[in-house]
Structure formats: structure tokens, C-alpha cells
């Protein structure tokens, strides 16, 4: 075990994967000798050489197109998009190519070795274009897996899980936690399962569900709620696609209430999908409407970031309303 922040844990996961398998490659804008703008790929070029860790030209569609080809060839590319806000030039390569490679070829070819890493989410005064949470766009695309870690231990285990998963995976890293989240991380190669949510705390009155940096927000809100005598069950969804319906439904069968929170805007956000599925599954068990606590339906603001974000107070209010309904 070593004390690490989330960046160090991610760097350690990449190092672990590259040491174990020479087919693992890391590339993207500024990831080479500089180690990435957040330093997630620090020292990898020095350690594994320029052929396996390198800068690419500034072209996201090229980075992912190149990565798709590499993965089809049998390499294990870990491509970095510098900010999730800049992933959209690669939308076609991800949605029409990565996601459909196996299906359209009848499993003759696949890009299962592909992992796309991107710093994501708000809370760092990044304004419109260094703050977005675009998971819902990709969650509408069968064939992709989407993972968001909540802390350093999860980040290393889930990233290694994503790299070794035989399906193309988007790995969104909550950049607000990069240096803020610190914890014990095992030194060895360990892989956390994709597609499995984790119950972080058991409770009886209400289920509070989120992922990534929202888990910290949820914990603060739950501390407040428990002081009011409300027993909360906390679930980290961890994998957005394909998501773990069973774990969430089983929790709601027990608590009868669900609060879902994410930073992305409300309309078309993934909380809507969760709410629709859970009301279908748990209709007769629900004591109150499923609540969504999300970013507002606006572009991501700058100065009024705090007002926009679904913070612990908003989540606390939603828990209260759900229980008091």
C-alpha cells in the first residue's frame, strides 16, 4: 500500500499495465515527455520509450481513429483526450466505429483493447470548456463501456479493469479529485470489475446514488441527513454503461426512495434513464418520486459555478424532500 492522490494512482495503473504487456501504448496531446497537462502520464515515455508513449498532433478524431486501428491490430491503446470537453471531434470514431466494430463484423474484428481516458467534470473554475460531464451522450451508444472512479483506489483498479476489459471503454477521470482525493492504493496489479455498482454504506430510509466526484458530495449530504435521523444507503454506480440495475433496484426495494445526482445537465442526463428503469422495476415499492439532483440545463458557467453544481446542500434538500414526501 502507498499513499497516492488520484493522478498518482492513474499514473501507477498505466505504469503497471505497460510493464505487464508491451502491447499497451499511451498517447495523446502532450502525454509524451511532458507527461500530460495534468501529469497522468509522467515518466512513462522515459521508462517505456517514445514508441510506446508519445505525443500526437492536436486532432482528437485522429487520436481515436488511430487508436481504433491499433486496437483492431491487436495492440492495447490507452488514448488520452486532454479534456472530456474536447472529445466531440472524435464522436464519430467513438460512436460509429469503436462501439460498432465487433457487431458490424460479426466478431471477425474488434477494438476491445481500446481505453479512452479523459479528465472530466467541474469544480476547478474551468468554465464552459474545461468542466463538462458528457457521459450521457455516450451512454446512448451500445457497444461502449463507461467508467467513472471516485477515489485513487478505485481509479487504479477500475482503469486496469478497463484496460483489460475486452470491450472499448471510456474512462472519465473527475479532475477535481486529481490532487484533492488521497488514499491508500495497493502496489500490485488489481482489477476492479466493470458493470458492478458498489454499496458504500447501508441504510433503510433512502438510497442516494451517484458516481465520480459526486460521491464526496453525497457523503457530505448524507452526514447532514443522518444528523436529522435519516438512514441513507449510498451507492457508487462506477460503471455508467452497461449499468448495474440489480444493485440499485435491490436497494430501492428496501428503502423505497431514490435520489440520483450527477453534474451533467438534467434534461437527457443519465439520471433520467436510472429513474425510468427503477420506477418500472420498483413501482409498488416507491414511497416518493425519484429525485434528480443535477447541473442546470445551461452551458457550464464560470463565476457562478457553485450555484450551477449539485452540491451537498442541494442533495441534502432532495433527501429531505424525498423522506418528507
Amino acid at each position, binding site marked *: 500500500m502507498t499513499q497516492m492522490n488520484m493522478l498518482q494512482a492513474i499514473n501507477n495503473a498505466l505504469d503497471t499495465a505497460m510493464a505487464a504487456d508491451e502491447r499497451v501504448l499511451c498517447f495523446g496531446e502532450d502525454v509524451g515527455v511532458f507527461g500530460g497537462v495534468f501529469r497522468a502520464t509522467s515518466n512513462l515515455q522515459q521508462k517505456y520509450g517514445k514508441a510506446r508513449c508519445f505525443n500526437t498532433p492536436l486532432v482528437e478524431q485522429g487520436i481515436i481513429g488511430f487508436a481504433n486501428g491499433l486496437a483492431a491490430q491487436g495492440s492495447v491503446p490507452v488514448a488520452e483526450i486532454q479534456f472530456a470537453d474536447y472529445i466531440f471531434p472524435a464522436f464519430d470514431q467513438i460512436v460509429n466505429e469503436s462501439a460498432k466494430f465487433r*457487431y*458490424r463484423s460479426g466478431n471477425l474484428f474488434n477494438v476491445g483493447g481500446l481505453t479512452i481516458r479523459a479528465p472530466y467534470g467541474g469544480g476547478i473554475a474551468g468554465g464552459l470548456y474545461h468542466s463538462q460531464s458528457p457521459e450521457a451522450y455516450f451512454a446512448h451508444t451500445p457497444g461502449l463501456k463507461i467508467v467513472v472512479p471516485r477515489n485513487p483506489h478505485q481509479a487504479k483498479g477500475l482503469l486496469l479493469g478497463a484496460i483489460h476489459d*475486452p470491450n472499448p471503454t471510456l474512462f472519465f477521470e473527475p479532475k477535481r479529485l486529481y490532487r484533492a482525493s488521497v488514499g491508500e492504493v495497493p502496489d500490485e496489479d488489481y482489477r476492479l470489475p466493470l458493470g458492478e455498482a458498489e454499496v458504500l454504506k447501508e441504510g433503510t430510509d433512502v438510497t442516494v446514488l451517484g458516481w465520480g466526484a459526486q460521491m464526496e458530495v453525497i457523503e457530505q449530504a448524507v452526514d447532514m441527513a443522518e444528523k436529522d435521523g435519516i438512514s441513507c444507503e449510498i451507492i457508487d454506480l462506477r460503471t455508467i454503461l452497461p449499468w448495474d440495475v440489480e444493485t440499485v433496484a435491490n436497494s430501492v426495494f428496501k428503502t423505497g426512495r431514490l435520489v440520483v445526482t450527477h453534474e451533467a445537465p438534467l434534461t437527457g442526463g443519465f439520471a433520467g434513464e436510472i429513474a425510468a428503469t427503477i420506477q418500472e422495476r420498483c413501482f409498488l415499492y416507491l414511497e416518493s418520486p425519484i429525485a434528480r439532483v443535477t447541473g442546470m440545463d445551461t452551458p457550464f458557467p464560470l463565476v457562478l459555478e457553485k450555484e450551477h453544481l449539485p452540491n451537498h446542500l442541494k442533495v441534502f434538500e432532495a433527501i429531505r424532500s424525498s423522506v418528507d414526501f
Partner: protein
Amino acid sequence: MTTTRSKVVYSPVFTDGAEFRIPTFKLLKQDGSLYKGAKAPALDKDKALRIYRTMVTTRILDERMLAAQRQGRLSFYMQCTGEEAAVIGSAAALDDADMIMAQYREQGALAYRGFTIDEFMNQLFGNELDYGKGRQMPVHYGSKKLNYMTISSPLATQIPQATGYAYGQKLAGEGNCTITYFGEGAASEGDFHAALNMAAVQRVPVIFLCRNNGYAISTPAAEQFAADGVAPRAYGYKMDVIRVDGNDVLAMHEATRAARSLAVEHNRPVLIEAMSYRLAAHSSSDDPSGYRSKDEEAVWREKDPILRMRLWLERKKWWSEDDEKQLQETMRREVLETMKRAQKRPPPPLESLVSDVYDEVPPVLAEQFEKLKAHIRRYPDAYPKSAEHAKGGA
């Protein structure tokens, strides 16, 4: 750090690149003789005949399948007509282990590798033997064993993938390259530029083969770009480039052979611009009479690449009238008989609706599938292709 080394001037000097006029490489005249000074390529009789037979087979397959589409047997088709030399001449210059990442009009390259008429038909009819499990429209072929990447409809997406694939080949040290085909229209997509730039920067063994066939559906090349074709773009990326008469099978073969050597032996990516003409419609859904003249088509029909090669073969005494007659009859019969067999084969099983989305069917999708099967069991007459398959399971 700048990489531009340039002399300094003290008044504004603009340049339009006109000094970079790119020549066209030709070997074979339309009458089957070589141009004066042209060096005959190293092509033995067996290989020359294999190329020729593949060109004729492709033409017959295309004619027959377009007719089948018109008869309503097939939903859709795309012909390679007029571009057989560009596609097959280039493919024949590769090693069988080189990867081919095509656009959609390069069935000739796949035929050259040995894809059988039966394999073509199974894909076209989307039957249970189709490798793609009936999921894609006709002409979206793929073959793992023949190193031919399954076709994807979105244009130009295969080009940066080819750069990545070839980078992987270079790291693996296999001594192989990747060739990617695309039209002059697709070369306007951002993916084209990304691919060429990345290949040049990383010195990747990849051949970019642009089939400049004059049209992107109805849009003529003159409305696609202002420049002298696609070839000059290579200069901007510091890449080797050659323009070839795409109806000249010998020149296409020779240019691709030399390009492959640059790519594999020297890690130099190459752009080949094959100048040709799409004699057929864009697809079975298109009608060129709305945007070009019969006279224009007639000019290019005179430059038929298959006839040009046949005349060369006949001059060399490698081919005769009888050989031609026999090949035409044999292939027409084979195409027809194979088509009838393929059309009768059953559709892929219902399970193929949900398999291969992921390596394993995830629980949410498995649940949707069980619901679908239950629904089909309630309305079997509405789903004749799958009612039998739906009987199994919960």
C-alpha cells in the same frame, strides 16, 4: 521550436504552389502497347492472368448483382465498374499478410485475395453464412483470414484507423503494411487529414490510395476541391506522393509495388492518387443521368481498363478469344448458380440481434432479448424470419 526552415524576404511574397505540378504515371496505352520509353513491369504470366481474371470476375459480379437488385432480389448494390485496374492492380502488388482497409467499392481487392463468389453472395443476401451475420447492408464485406477489414459506411473513418493499424504492424516488426482506399470525396473529411499527418509524423508503413473517380455521388471533383486533385496535399504533410493513371493496371501495380517498398523498408507512408472514372452509378439508389452527360461517360468507356489489359495480354500471347469466351461463360454461370443457392439459405439466428454488441450479452440487454422472444412467440406470423428461433428460452 519551429520546424520551418525558410529563406527570408523583405516584401510580401505569396505562393500558390503552382510549381508543384504533379505528373501522371502511365505505362499502358489503350491499344495494349506500352508507351515509348515505358519499362515493362516485372509481372509474370500467372500473376498477370490472376489479375485479369479477377478484373473480369468483378465486372461480371457487378453487372449480375446490379441486375439482381433491379429484379428486387437484393436491397442495394455498388459497382466498381471502370475502377477495376486501380483497385485490383494495387491490391495485387501487396503481400497477402498486408491489411486492406477499404471504403466500399473495392470488392476487386477482396476477390483478388481469394474471397469466393459464395462468400460474396452470403454477405449480399445477409444469410446465416454471412460473416457479418446479416447486420450490414450489401457490399459491407470483411474477411479476417484474408486480412480485409470489414467495411464501415461512414466515409473516411478507415483512414486514421489504417495509420493506427500500420503503426501496430511497425511495432510488431512483421514487415507488413496497411493499404487504405477512399474516394476523392472522402478525402475532404477531417479524418483524411488527421490520418496523413499522423502517418507522416510517426513514419508509419501505410499506403493511402485515393480513387479519384470524378464524382462523390453527384458532386464533381471540381466542386470538391480547387486544387490540382488530392495529390498536392501530401506536400503539406511531407509525404511521398504519386499520381497514376488509374485505368492502367500495369502502372497501378508498379506504383503500388514501389510504394509498398517505401512503406515497409523505409517507414515512409505514401499517397497514391489513381485517376479514374466511376462508370457506374454511385450505387443502385443513384441515377447519374441527373448530373452528367452520356457523352462524358462515353469518353471514359473508351478508356476501359479491362479491355486495355486484355489487349496487352493478347499482344503477349498470354490470352486468346477462346480464353475470354470460356472465362465469361464460366463466371456468369458460377455467379448465377451461387446466387440462387445463397438466396435460399436461412437468415441468421435471432440471437445474432444481441450478440457481439459486447464480448458477452450484458444483463440489461439479455432482459430485452427475453422480452422480445416472448413477444415474437405471441405474434409468430408477424416475424416469419425468427418465429422458429424464438421458441427456445424462457
